[in-house]
Protein backbone atom coordinates (compact mmCIF):
# COMPACT_ATOMS: atom_id res chain seq x y z
CA UNK A 1 0.00 0.00 0.00
CA UNK A 2 1.27 3.40 -0.91
CA UNK A 3 2.04 5.99 1.71
CA UNK A 4 0.14 9.21 1.09
CA UNK A 5 2.00 12.41 1.67
CA UNK A 6 -0.88 14.68 2.58
CA UNK A 7 1.39 17.72 2.84
CA UNK A 8 2.64 17.21 -0.65
CA UNK A 9 -0.88 16.65 -1.93
CA UNK A 10 -1.94 20.02 -0.55
CA UNK A 11 1.30 21.66 -1.58
CA UNK A 12 2.15 22.83 1.93
CA UNK A 13 5.15 22.41 4.21
CA UNK A 14 4.85 19.90 7.04
CA UNK A 15 5.00 22.75 9.56
CA UNK A 16 2.17 24.69 7.92
CA UNK A 17 -0.39 26.14 10.31
CA UNK A 18 -4.08 25.32 10.06
CA UNK A 19 -4.84 28.56 8.24
CA UNK A 20 -2.35 27.78 5.49
CA UNK A 21 -3.72 24.28 5.21
CA UNK A 22 -7.28 25.55 4.92
CA UNK A 23 -6.34 28.05 2.23
CA UNK A 24 -4.40 25.45 0.28
CA UNK A 25 -7.32 23.03 0.47
CA UNK A 26 -9.84 25.62 -0.64
CA UNK A 27 -7.77 26.57 -3.67
CA UNK A 28 -7.26 23.00 -4.77
CA UNK A 29 -10.85 21.96 -4.04
CA UNK A 30 -12.26 24.56 -6.37
CA UNK A 31 -9.58 23.88 -8.94
CA UNK A 32 -10.21 20.14 -9.12
CA UNK A 33 -13.89 19.84 -8.37
CA UNK A 34 -15.22 17.56 -11.15
CA UNK A 35 -18.06 19.96 -11.98
CA UNK A 36 -15.58 22.74 -12.55
CA UNK A 37 -12.44 21.11 -13.84
CA UNK A 38 -11.59 19.86 -17.32
CA UNK A 39 -8.69 17.88 -15.93
CA UNK A 40 -9.03 14.22 -16.86
CA UNK A 41 -8.18 13.04 -13.36
CA UNK A 42 -10.20 15.74 -11.63
CA UNK A 43 -12.36 13.43 -9.57
CA UNK A 44 -9.40 11.45 -8.28
CA UNK A 45 -7.45 14.55 -7.43
CA UNK A 46 -10.43 16.11 -5.72
CA UNK A 47 -10.87 13.03 -3.53
CA UNK A 48 -7.18 13.03 -2.74
CA UNK A 49 -7.19 16.67 -1.75
CA UNK A 50 -10.34 16.26 0.35
CA UNK A 51 -8.89 13.29 2.15
CA UNK A 52 -5.66 15.14 2.87
CA UNK A 53 -7.62 18.03 4.34
CA UNK A 54 -9.83 15.70 6.34
CA UNK A 55 -6.74 14.49 8.15
CA UNK A 56 -4.67 17.64 8.42
CA UNK A 57 -7.49 19.94 9.56
CA UNK A 58 -8.14 17.84 12.65
CA UNK A 59 -5.45 18.25 15.31
CA UNK A 60 -5.77 14.75 16.64
CA UNK A 61 -5.82 13.08 13.23
CA UNK A 62 -2.92 15.20 12.15
CA UNK A 63 -0.92 14.19 15.19
CA UNK A 64 -1.58 10.52 14.53
CA UNK A 65 -0.66 10.98 10.91
CA UNK A 66 2.58 12.71 11.96
CA UNK A 67 3.55 9.73 14.06
CA UNK A 68 3.01 7.38 11.20
CA UNK A 69 4.86 9.63 8.88
CA UNK A 70 7.86 9.56 11.17
CA UNK A 71 7.60 5.88 11.84
CA UNK A 72 6.51 4.34 8.55
CA UNK A 73 9.05 3.14 6.00
CA UNK A 74 7.87 4.39 2.67
CA UNK A 75 10.63 3.04 0.61
CA UNK A 76 9.30 -0.47 0.49
CA UNK A 77 5.62 0.32 0.62
CA UNK A 78 3.76 1.33 3.70
CA UNK A 79 3.20 -0.86 6.75
CA UNK A 80 1.06 0.63 9.52
CA UNK A 81 2.65 0.22 12.93
CA UNK A 82 0.70 -2.07 15.28
CA UNK A 83 -2.01 -0.44 17.37
CA UNK A 84 -2.23 2.62 15.17
CA UNK A 85 -6.02 2.59 14.80
CA UNK A 86 -7.40 6.02 15.41
CA UNK A 87 -9.43 6.86 18.48
CA UNK A 88 -10.72 10.17 17.18
CA UNK A 89 -14.23 10.43 15.81
CA UNK A 90 -15.49 12.88 13.33
CA UNK A 91 -18.59 14.90 14.15
CA UNK A 92 -19.50 15.52 10.57
CA UNK A 93 -19.29 12.44 8.41
CA UNK A 94 -17.20 13.09 5.34
CA UNK A 95 -19.17 12.28 2.27
CA UNK A 96 -16.46 10.69 0.23
CA UNK A 97 -14.49 7.56 -0.41
CA UNK A 98 -11.32 7.03 1.49
CA UNK A 99 -8.15 5.49 0.20
CA UNK A 100 -6.94 2.23 1.65
CA UNK A 101 -4.20 4.19 3.32
CA UNK A 102 -6.68 6.37 5.21
CA UNK A 103 -8.94 3.47 6.18
CA UNK A 104 -6.00 1.54 7.56
CA UNK A 105 -5.15 4.31 9.96
CA UNK A 106 -8.47 5.94 10.71
CA UNK A 107 -11.03 3.31 9.84
CA UNK A 108 -14.15 3.97 7.84
CA UNK A 109 -16.02 7.06 8.91
CA UNK A 110 -19.82 6.92 8.82
CA UNK A 111 -19.73 3.73 6.80
CA UNK A 112 -19.59 5.25 3.35
CA UNK A 113 -21.48 7.94 1.49
CA UNK A 114 -24.13 9.95 3.23
CA UNK A 115 -26.58 11.95 1.21
CA UNK A 116 -28.87 14.90 1.46
CA UNK A 117 -31.05 14.19 4.51
CA UNK A 118 -34.04 13.37 2.38
CA UNK A 119 -33.16 9.77 1.64
CA UNK A 120 -33.75 6.97 4.11
CA UNK A 121 -30.69 6.94 6.26
CA UNK A 122 -30.75 3.27 7.11
CA UNK A 123 -30.89 0.62 4.44
CA UNK A 124 -32.95 1.82 1.48
CA UNK A 125 -31.04 4.03 -0.82
CA UNK A 126 -31.56 4.84 -4.47
CA UNK A 127 -28.66 3.68 -6.62
CA UNK A 128 -26.27 6.18 -8.11
CA UNK A 129 -27.13 7.92 -11.33
CA UNK A 130 -24.74 7.35 -14.22
CA UNK A 131 -24.04 9.94 -16.87
CA UNK A 132 -22.38 9.04 -20.13
CA UNK A 133 -21.78 10.62 -23.53
CA UNK A 134 -23.66 9.27 -26.53
CA UNK A 135 -22.00 10.05 -29.88
CA UNK A 136 -24.53 10.61 -32.65
CA UNK A 137 -23.87 11.15 -36.35
CA UNK A 138 -25.49 14.17 -38.00
CA UNK A 139 -27.25 11.84 -40.43
CA UNK A 140 -28.81 10.02 -37.50
CA UNK A 141 -30.56 13.18 -36.35
CA UNK A 142 -32.63 13.38 -39.51
CA UNK A 143 -35.17 10.92 -38.15
CA UNK A 144 -35.82 8.91 -35.00
CA UNK A 145 -32.95 6.54 -34.73
CA UNK A 146 -32.28 3.36 -32.80
CA UNK A 147 -28.80 3.13 -31.31
CA UNK A 148 -26.88 0.93 -28.94
CA UNK A 149 -25.08 2.31 -25.92
CA UNK A 150 -22.46 0.48 -23.88
CA UNK A 151 -21.50 1.59 -20.43
CA UNK A 152 -19.96 0.43 -17.19
CA UNK A 153 -22.37 -0.46 -14.43
CA UNK A 154 -21.50 -1.37 -10.85
CA UNK A 155 -23.26 -4.61 -9.96
CA UNK A 156 -23.32 -6.60 -6.78
CA UNK A 157 -22.33 -10.21 -7.13
CA UNK A 158 -23.54 -13.01 -4.85
CA UNK A 159 -21.15 -12.00 -2.11
CA UNK A 160 -22.47 -8.46 -2.12
CA UNK A 161 -19.23 -7.20 -3.64
CA UNK A 162 -19.39 -4.35 -6.13
CA UNK A 163 -17.94 -5.07 -9.56
CA UNK A 164 -17.92 -3.04 -12.77
CA UNK A 165 -19.97 -4.79 -15.41
CA UNK A 166 -20.35 -3.82 -19.06
CA UNK A 167 -23.96 -3.20 -20.03
CA UNK A 168 -25.53 -2.65 -23.44
CA UNK A 169 -28.85 -0.97 -24.13
CA UNK A 170 -30.94 -0.08 -27.16
CA UNK A 171 -32.04 3.52 -27.17
CA UNK A 172 -34.24 5.55 -29.49
CA UNK A 173 -32.76 8.94 -30.26
CA UNK A 174 -35.48 11.34 -31.38
CA UNK A 175 -34.97 13.31 -34.58
CA UNK A 176 -33.49 16.79 -34.31
CA UNK A 177 -31.51 16.33 -31.10
CA UNK A 178 -28.91 18.97 -30.49
CA UNK A 179 -25.47 18.60 -29.04
CA UNK A 180 -25.58 18.49 -25.23
CA UNK A 181 -29.17 17.27 -24.93
CA UNK A 182 -29.76 14.93 -22.03
CA UNK A 183 -31.92 11.84 -22.23
CA UNK A 184 -32.93 10.06 -19.07
CA UNK A 185 -33.30 6.28 -18.93
CA UNK A 186 -35.09 5.43 -15.76
CA UNK A 187 -33.67 2.66 -13.59
CA UNK A 188 -30.68 1.94 -15.81
CA UNK A 189 -28.14 3.32 -13.37
CA UNK A 190 -26.47 1.65 -10.41
CA UNK A 191 -28.50 -0.77 -8.35
CA UNK A 192 -30.17 0.55 -5.21
CA UNK A 193 -29.38 -0.57 -1.67
CA UNK A 194 -31.99 -2.64 0.14
CA UNK A 195 -35.36 -1.73 -1.25
CA UNK A 196 -33.96 1.35 -2.90
CA UNK A 197 -34.70 1.99 -6.56
CA UNK A 198 -32.05 1.73 -9.20
CA UNK A 199 -30.37 4.95 -10.19
CA UNK A 200 -30.98 6.43 -13.61
CA UNK A 201 -28.84 6.59 -16.72
CA UNK A 202 -28.39 9.98 -18.33
CA UNK A 203 -27.19 10.09 -21.90
CA UNK A 204 -25.59 13.28 -23.08
CA UNK A 205 -25.84 13.63 -26.85
CA UNK A 206 -22.58 14.51 -28.59
CA UNK A 207 -22.86 15.26 -32.27
CA UNK A 208 -19.85 13.81 -34.07
CA UNK A 209 -18.03 16.46 -36.16
CA UNK A 210 -18.80 15.85 -39.83
CA UNK A 211 -15.97 15.96 -42.38
CA UNK A 212 -17.99 18.16 -44.75
CA UNK A 213 -20.57 20.04 -42.69
CA UNK A 214 -20.30 22.49 -39.82
CA UNK A 215 -23.29 22.97 -37.53
CA UNK A 216 -24.73 26.24 -36.29
CA UNK A 217 -28.00 25.76 -34.39
CA UNK A 218 -30.21 23.94 -36.90
CA UNK A 219 -28.32 25.19 -39.95
CA UNK A 220 -25.54 23.42 -41.78
CA UNK A 221 -22.58 24.95 -43.52
CA UNK A 222 -20.50 23.44 -46.31
CA UNK A 223 -17.47 24.94 -48.05
CA UNK A 224 -17.96 24.70 -51.81
CA UNK A 225 -14.63 24.63 -53.66
CA UNK A 226 -14.79 26.03 -57.21
CA UNK A 227 -12.24 26.50 -60.00
CA UNK A 228 -11.31 30.12 -60.84
CA UNK A 229 -13.05 29.86 -64.23
CA UNK A 230 -16.21 28.57 -62.57
CA UNK A 231 -16.25 31.64 -60.34
CA UNK A 232 -15.50 33.85 -63.34
CA UNK A 233 -18.05 32.40 -65.74
CA UNK A 234 -20.66 31.05 -63.37
CA UNK A 235 -21.43 27.33 -63.05
CA UNK A 236 -23.83 24.66 -61.86
CA UNK A 237 -22.37 22.91 -58.82
CA UNK A 238 -23.67 19.65 -57.40
CA UNK A 239 -23.49 20.08 -53.64
CA UNK A 240 -23.87 17.17 -51.21
CA UNK A 241 -26.52 17.67 -48.54
CA UNK A 242 -26.85 15.59 -45.39
CA UNK A 243 -29.10 13.34 -47.42
CA UNK A 244 -28.96 13.52 -51.20
CA UNK A 245 -27.46 16.16 -53.50
CA UNK A 246 -28.53 19.64 -54.56
CA UNK A 247 -27.84 21.68 -57.69
CA UNK A 248 -26.53 25.15 -56.93
CA UNK A 249 -26.11 27.75 -59.68
CA UNK A 250 -23.42 30.27 -59.03
CA UNK A 251 -23.47 33.48 -61.07
CA UNK A 252 -20.57 34.90 -63.08
CA UNK A 253 -17.99 36.84 -61.03
CA UNK A 254 -18.72 35.04 -57.77
CA UNK A 255 -16.41 35.68 -54.82
CA UNK A 256 -14.75 33.53 -52.20
CA UNK A 257 -16.85 33.77 -49.05
CA UNK A 258 -20.15 34.25 -50.83
CA UNK A 259 -23.01 32.30 -49.23
CA UNK A 260 -25.62 30.37 -51.15
CA UNK A 261 -28.67 29.39 -49.14
CA UNK A 262 -30.35 26.05 -49.74
CA UNK A 263 -33.63 26.13 -47.88
CA UNK A 264 -34.75 23.22 -45.75
CA UNK A 265 -31.60 21.15 -46.14
CA UNK A 266 -30.32 21.73 -42.62
CA UNK A 267 -31.16 19.83 -39.43
CA UNK A 268 -34.71 19.08 -38.31
CA UNK A 269 -36.32 21.22 -35.62
CA UNK A 270 -39.74 21.67 -34.11
CA UNK A 271 -41.23 23.66 -36.99
CA UNK A 272 -39.45 22.08 -39.94
CA UNK A 273 -35.84 22.11 -41.06
CA UNK A 274 -32.98 24.54 -40.89
CA UNK A 275 -31.05 25.55 -44.01
CA UNK A 276 -27.83 24.47 -45.69
CA UNK A 277 -25.42 27.27 -46.54
CA UNK A 278 -22.85 26.60 -49.25
CA UNK A 279 -19.92 28.98 -48.94
CA UNK A 280 -17.83 29.54 -52.02
CA UNK A 281 -14.08 29.04 -51.94
CA UNK A 282 -12.02 29.56 -55.09
CA UNK A 283 -9.19 27.06 -55.28
CA UNK A 284 -6.25 26.89 -57.67
CA UNK A 285 -5.00 23.74 -59.38
CA UNK A 286 -1.63 22.73 -57.98
CA UNK A 287 -0.08 21.77 -61.30
CA UNK A 288 -0.39 23.22 -64.78
CA UNK A 289 0.74 22.10 -68.17
CA UNK A 290 2.36 24.53 -70.64
CA UNK A 291 -0.75 25.04 -72.72
CA UNK A 292 -2.85 26.02 -69.75
CA UNK A 293 -0.06 28.24 -68.51
CA UNK A 294 -0.13 30.09 -71.81
CA UNK A 295 -3.82 30.76 -71.35
CA UNK A 296 -3.18 32.13 -67.90
CA UNK A 297 -0.48 34.42 -69.29
CA UNK A 298 -2.83 35.73 -71.93
CA UNK A 299 -5.41 36.42 -69.30
CA UNK A 300 -2.81 38.16 -67.14
CA UNK A 301 -1.87 40.41 -70.02
CA UNK A 302 -5.44 41.20 -71.05
CA UNK A 303 -7.12 41.74 -67.70
CA UNK A 304 -6.87 45.08 -65.97
CA UNK A 305 -8.24 43.95 -62.61
CA UNK A 306 -6.24 45.09 -59.58
CA UNK A 307 -7.03 42.98 -56.52
CA UNK A 308 -4.85 45.22 -54.31
CA UNK A 309 -6.37 48.53 -55.28
CA UNK A 310 -7.13 49.18 -51.62
CA UNK A 311 -3.47 49.09 -50.74
CA UNK A 312 -2.08 51.82 -52.94
CA UNK A 313 -2.31 55.37 -51.68
Amino acid at each position, binding site marked *: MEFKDYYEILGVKPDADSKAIKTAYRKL*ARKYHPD*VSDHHEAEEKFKEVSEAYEVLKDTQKRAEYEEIREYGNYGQGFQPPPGSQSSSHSNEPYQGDFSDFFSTIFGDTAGGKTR*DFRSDYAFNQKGQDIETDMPVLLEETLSNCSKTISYSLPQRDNNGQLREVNKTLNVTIPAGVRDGK*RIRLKGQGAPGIGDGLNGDLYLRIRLVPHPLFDV*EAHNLLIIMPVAPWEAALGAKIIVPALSGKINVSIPANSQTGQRFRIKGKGLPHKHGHGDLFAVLKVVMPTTTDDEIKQHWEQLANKATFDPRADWSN
Partner: protein
Amino acid sequence: MADLKHYDFSFEELCEISELSSLTIIEIVEHGIIEPDGADPENWVFSTQMVAVAKKAYRLQRDLSIGWQGIALAISLLDELEQLKAENQQLRRCLDRFIADSAVLFPNRHTR
Protein backbone atom coordinates in the same frame (compact mmCIF):
# COMPACT_ATOMS: atom_id res chain seq x y z
CA MET B 1 -41.12 14.53 -35.59
CA ALA B 2 -40.77 13.43 -31.97
CA ASP B 3 -41.81 15.96 -29.36
CA LEU B 4 -38.55 16.78 -27.62
CA LYS B 5 -40.15 18.28 -24.48
CA HIS B 6 -41.74 14.96 -23.70
CA TYR B 7 -39.88 14.26 -20.48
CA ASP B 8 -41.04 16.65 -17.77
CA PHE B 9 -41.16 16.25 -14.02
CA SER B 10 -43.23 17.64 -11.22
CA PHE B 11 -41.68 18.99 -8.03
CA GLU B 12 -42.31 15.72 -6.25
CA GLU B 13 -40.87 13.70 -9.11
CA LEU B 14 -37.77 15.88 -9.19
CA CYS B 15 -37.21 15.21 -5.49
CA GLU B 16 -37.42 11.49 -6.16
CA ILE B 17 -35.21 11.49 -9.21
CA SER B 18 -32.52 13.83 -8.00
CA GLU B 19 -32.63 12.67 -4.38
CA LEU B 20 -32.47 16.28 -3.28
CA SER B 21 -34.65 17.52 -0.45
CA SER B 22 -37.59 19.79 -1.23
CA LEU B 23 -35.87 22.58 0.70
CA THR B 24 -32.75 22.27 -1.41
CA ILE B 25 -34.76 22.40 -4.61
CA ILE B 26 -36.70 25.41 -3.42
CA GLU B 27 -33.41 27.21 -2.66
CA ILE B 28 -32.14 26.33 -6.09
CA VAL B 29 -35.26 27.67 -7.79
CA GLU B 30 -35.41 30.77 -5.58
CA HIS B 31 -31.90 31.68 -6.63
CA GLY B 32 -32.83 31.33 -10.28
CA ILE B 33 -30.41 28.49 -10.84
CA ILE B 34 -33.17 26.61 -12.62
CA GLU B 35 -36.39 28.20 -13.78
CA PRO B 36 -39.25 25.74 -14.01
CA ASP B 37 -42.52 26.62 -15.68
CA GLY B 38 -45.33 27.22 -13.19
CA ALA B 39 -45.95 29.80 -10.49
CA ASP B 40 -45.48 27.71 -7.36
CA PRO B 41 -44.08 24.35 -6.25
CA GLU B 42 -47.37 22.56 -6.90
CA ASN B 43 -47.33 23.69 -10.51
CA TRP B 44 -43.63 23.59 -11.24
CA VAL B 45 -42.57 21.64 -14.33
CA PHE B 46 -38.93 20.62 -14.66
CA SER B 47 -37.06 19.37 -17.72
CA THR B 48 -34.42 16.65 -17.84
CA GLN B 49 -31.78 19.32 -18.33
CA MET B 50 -32.83 20.95 -15.06
CA VAL B 51 -32.23 17.73 -13.15
CA ALA B 52 -28.57 17.81 -14.07
CA VAL B 53 -28.22 21.48 -13.17
CA ALA B 54 -29.91 20.99 -9.80
CA LYS B 55 -27.63 18.10 -8.90
CA LYS B 56 -24.57 20.02 -10.00
CA ALA B 57 -25.61 23.02 -7.92
CA TYR B 58 -26.09 20.80 -4.89
CA ARG B 59 -22.70 19.11 -5.33
CA LEU B 60 -20.87 22.43 -5.63
CA GLN B 61 -22.65 23.84 -2.62
CA ARG B 62 -21.89 20.76 -0.55
CA ASP B 63 -18.28 20.26 -1.62
CA LEU B 64 -17.04 23.83 -1.83
CA SER B 65 -19.07 25.34 1.01
CA ILE B 66 -20.31 28.16 -1.17
CA GLY B 67 -23.59 29.98 -0.50
CA TRP B 68 -26.44 29.65 -3.00
CA GLN B 69 -25.87 33.07 -4.52
CA GLY B 70 -22.27 32.12 -5.19
CA ILE B 71 -23.41 28.83 -6.67
CA ALA B 72 -25.86 30.62 -8.95
CA LEU B 73 -23.06 32.86 -10.20
CA ALA B 74 -20.65 29.96 -10.59
CA ILE B 75 -23.14 27.93 -12.58
CA SER B 76 -24.07 30.75 -14.89
CA LEU B 77 -20.38 31.46 -15.52
CA LEU B 78 -19.61 27.78 -16.04
CA ASP B 79 -22.49 27.59 -18.55
CA GLU B 80 -21.23 30.61 -20.43
CA LEU B 81 -17.73 29.15 -20.42
CA GLU B 82 -19.02 25.88 -21.84
CA GLN B 83 -20.89 27.73 -24.56
CA LEU B 84 -17.88 29.86 -25.43
CA LYS B 85 -15.68 26.80 -25.66
CA ALA B 86 -18.17 25.13 -27.98
CA GLU B 87 -18.40 28.25 -30.16
CA ASN B 88 -14.65 28.48 -30.19
CA GLN B 89 -14.34 24.93 -31.35
CA GLN B 90 -16.95 25.48 -34.02
CA LEU B 91 -15.26 28.60 -35.37
CA ARG B 92 -11.93 26.85 -35.30
CA ARG B 93 -13.28 23.99 -37.42
CA CYS B 94 -14.71 26.44 -39.91
CA LEU B 95 -11.58 28.56 -39.97
CA ASP B 96 -9.46 25.50 -40.64
CA ARG B 97 -11.33 25.03 -43.89
CA PHE B 98 -10.02 28.40 -45.09
CA ILE B 99 -6.68 28.87 -43.40
CA ALA B 100 -4.05 26.18 -43.49
CA ASP B 101 -3.13 25.11 -39.97
CA SER B 102 -4.94 28.03 -38.34
CA ALA B 103 -3.64 26.98 -34.91
CA VAL B 104 -0.29 28.48 -35.86
CA LEU B 105 -1.95 31.89 -36.15
CA PHE B 106 -4.60 31.44 -33.44
CA PRO B 107 -3.20 29.08 -30.82
CA ASN B 108 -6.35 29.23 -28.69
CA ARG B 109 -6.17 26.93 -25.72
CA HIS B 110 -9.82 27.34 -24.81
CA THR B 111 -11.68 24.60 -26.55
CA ARG B 112 -13.99 21.99 -25.05
